[in-house]
């Protein structure tokens, strides 16, 4: 069902350039400059810092009235020069905003001019991404950035040279926007299979860094330039999340341009989608599932059996980006929770189709809301007599209103700590979600027990 109004009340989506800021953060030695007014960079830094509790530096070309009228190319060039002078990035993402897009600035040309004027800038990978905020949401900006990075940096020459060196057992992984804890888990999985891997973007360290003795302005970690250049030599690419259009798939890009076979999978949340991931890794590498993951899966199923009595028949509302919602819906269906509202600020025919397939055999067909807002989600949650909400912090008003718990997953989480450390993916992630979900429901029930505390 589409939104019931023309206006948007309490939006369930974030703007496109934010996704670019997040994606570039997973590249080693990288910085982002937003081509627009100063406020965009400030707002996005605030929103990323609020969730990850990490420093987030995003530069701005700081356009004002004059540039809005005469064009912002000079500001953009000066901005790039200043970022390079003070940060010395290896990679610099240049993302546009609605201001730059509306005035129609030619970012590519400005960068070409800059390279002409300052040839030493050629040592830096300057990667423009078009991210008009009036079109799509932050996952579009995120995926487009990954495509732009690979398009710019993974070359055929590198690929041939590397094939000569006889490299095998190398995977490209495009995880989409997961938590740093998720990326750390996926890295362990790769290592567990004995694989070398390139993960773009890899935010495992850059958005969840420790305090060390030396502070580094660009945080350590992220996918290295060297590894990205070798992307063409991988055995295969695995991409998590498949509801964005094919043109936004870095894996399909590599398949098309460098012949690296692509496997696109849903986000591996819950047992069914985790199985898909592990099967895919086994099949593209020809290796059996390591013992460790067989054990992990066994533990998960054991826990699901333990938890079913608290979960079965409970009614859940799920909201967020399409891939996230689809994967969570699958997970809920697998543990016996009835999804009653599946909602996204985004859209896409694949999203609706996927959800319809996932929920076909359930006792009740959930309300599927696309391009929706929290005003509609509230309405449908109330109507569906939901027991709990699952998604970002933005559902907190509904949770208060309906007096039902909110399980905070995904992004942004700004009213609890630890959002960056939530493990969502794989068997271990499914186990984590299962425990959180179950204990949240138990806690709620205990709160309301008329006869006081009880064993459950």
């Amino acid at each position, binding site marked *: 069902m589409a939104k019931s*109004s*023309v*206006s*948007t*009340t*309490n*939006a369930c*989506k*974030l*703007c*496109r*350039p*934010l996704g670019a800021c997040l994606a570039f953060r997973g590249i080693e030695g990288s910085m982002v400059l937003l081509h*627009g007014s*100063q*406020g*965009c*960079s*400030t*707002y996005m*830094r*605030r*929103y990323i*810092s*609020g969730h990850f*509790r*990490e*420093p*987030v*530096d995003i*530069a*701005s*070309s*700081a*356009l*004002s*009235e004059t540039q*809005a009228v005469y064009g912002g190319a000079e500001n*953009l060039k*000066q*901005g*790039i020069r*200043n970022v390079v002078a*003070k940060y010395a990035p290896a990679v610099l993402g240049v993302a546009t*905003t*609605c*201001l730059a897009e*509306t005035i129609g600035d030619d970012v590519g040309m400005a960068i070409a001019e800059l390279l002409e004027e300052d040839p030493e800038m050629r040592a830096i990978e300057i990667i423009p991404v078009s991210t*008009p*905020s*009036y*079109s799509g*949401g932050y996952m579009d900006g995120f995926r487009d950035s990954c495509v732009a990075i690979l398009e710019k940096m993974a070359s055929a020459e590198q690929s041939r040279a590397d094939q000569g060196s006889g490299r095998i057992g190398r995977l490209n992984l495009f995880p989409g926007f997961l938590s740093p804890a998720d990326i750390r888990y996926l890295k362990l999985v790769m290592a567990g299979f004995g694989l070398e891997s390139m993960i773009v973007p890899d935010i495992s360290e850059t958005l969840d860094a420790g*305090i*060390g*003795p030396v*502070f580094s*302005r660009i945080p350590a970690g992220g996918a290295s330039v060297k590894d990205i250049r070798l992307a063409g030599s991988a055995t295969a690419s695995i991409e998590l999340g498949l509801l964005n259009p094919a043109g936004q798939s870095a894996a399909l890009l590599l398949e098309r341009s460098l012949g690296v076979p692509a496997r696109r999978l849903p986000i591996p949340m819950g047992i069914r989608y985790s199985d898909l991931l592990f099967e895919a890794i086994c099949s593209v590498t020809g290796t059996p599932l390591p013992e460790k993951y067989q054990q992990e899966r066994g533990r998960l199923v054991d826990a699901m059996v333990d938890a079913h009595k608290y979960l079965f028949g409970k009614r859940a509302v799920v909201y967020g980006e399409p891939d996230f919602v689809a994967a969570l819906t699958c997970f809920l269906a697998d543990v016996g929770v009835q999804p009653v509202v599946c909602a996204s600020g985004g859209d896409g025919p694949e999203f609706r189709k996927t959800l319809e397939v996932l929920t076909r055999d359930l006792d009740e067909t959930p309300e599927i809301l696309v391009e929706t807002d929290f*005003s509609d989600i509230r309405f449908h949650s109330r109507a569906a007599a939901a027991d709990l909400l699952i998604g970002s912090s933005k559902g907190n*008003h509904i949770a208060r209103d309906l007096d039902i718990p909110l399980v905070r997953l995904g992004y942004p989480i700004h009213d609890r700590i630890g959002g960056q450390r939530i493990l969502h993916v794989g068997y271990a992630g499914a186990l984590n979600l299962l425990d959180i979900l179950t204990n949240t429901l138990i806690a709620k029930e205990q709160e309301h027990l008329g006869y006081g505390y009880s064993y459950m």
Partner: protein
Amino acid sequence: MAEPGKTIEELCEIKEKIVASYPDKVGKNRDKHIQVKGCTDAPSIDANAKTIPGIITTRGCAFAGAKGVVLGPIKDAVNLVHGPVGCSYYSWLTRRNLARPAEGGQSFLQYCCTTDMQEGDIVFGGEKKLMQAIREVHEILAPEAIIVSATCPVGLIGDDIASVSRQAEEELGVKVFSANCEGYKGVSQSVGHHIACNALMEHVVGTEELGDPTPLDINIFGEYNIGGDLWSIEPVLERIGYRIVSTYTGDASVHDLARAPHAKLNILMCHRSINYATKMFNDRYGLPWLKINYVGIEETARSLREMACFFGDEELMEKTEAVIGEEMARIAPEMERYRQRLEGKKIMLFVGGSRAHHFQRLSEELGMNVVMAGYEFAHRDDYEGRQILSQIRKKGMSKVVQDIQYELEPGFKPPLSEAELEEKNRQLGGHLLDYEGMISHMKEGALIMNDLNHHETELIIRELEPDVFCSGIKDKYVVEKMGVPSRQLHSYDYSGPYTGFDGALTFARDIDMAVSTPTIRFITPPWKDTEADCDA
């Protein structure tokens, strides 16, 4: 414990080091924004200047200043953002201005309403969509007013939001007005404050009568009720006998804003964001303003005394002294306990357009040394006082956004005659309608840095090794990664309120927490030399 501070010469060298760390042109620019108090040949500080592209500052935009700061807190109005989705989302309750619905009233601060402009709206114009959105907001939420604010594309494509608002007001019979606060206007959020003040003057102020005026009616300007700041000072003021007609704009109702001209005195907390309105109130209603500061015990007491002096009522003065005496006696032991714990600590304050000033006396009362203070988006008068206003060269957007020039409203009786006002001002030492700025209150040997950026934050922390750095969320984690405790003075790190007598204690507790937490000791592991990189 307390180290001797740096000498003025050493500080000047640090300043030179900062300037030299930039390319020539940028260095020359930044040179004008950094000052050492007490350095004799210091020229005037530069402020409210264009942001240098690519320099990572903490500044926001006009939209953030207008909708985010001034218009956002009005509780019974709905702020409808005309633009793509991001800006309304990012300004959705992020400033922590709290509100409680009045009896029988509503608060819409939990709502984030936007037209969520799409590509088609950019190409073909978004006026129709805006009109429909206003109708929906009216129909579904039924607020007391609808405020439309513009984001970047609106001005570029030429949507006439003023005209749409006017039509909607006629059609719906509810107050609808707009602010053209497109993000690219001006050099920071500052111009947005001005745009919002003008919008309020034009559409809200003076549109309602105050039914039951009292002799001690005041308005509080530049109080946004961050973390409940208003609710901490309100009971103190009420105990003395004042009645707050309206705040501008924390926890405010649009009706209170409308009735505000009938008060007797405007007290002004945040000079930067709203001095435009206090000036226009004075021009239009002869309603004078007094810059006060109720952060810090001495400052709160001084402010209360000046207010009492303004009203000149014996009983009021006695009551003021009684309340100050009671409050001080009540909190003194705890303040003293904290003072002993914080004595000699070095604090840096980089925040806002007024707060870096407000928190200085309180820091000093707690025994701390303010080694650096600066503003993100202030103007020169916030640093040097209003006497330099005439010297400020208007540039950029400040040329375009001017105060509305009001004459005294016909038929409106100002609370004081001109002669009375002059006498009051004499009694108040010339403080009425004046602000001395931050620098005059700073100690010699303190650094003043305008529009600090990330690079300079790092440098200055290395050079001056503060014990605590107070700023906002964008700096906070940089500072903490460097092993220095940090408190946010925008959101108060989800604590506060910090105003009045109780607020002083809360601030003391929070700073003590920051510098006393055992956690930072663990940065250096036990198997490493504890001398290195760790000040503990």
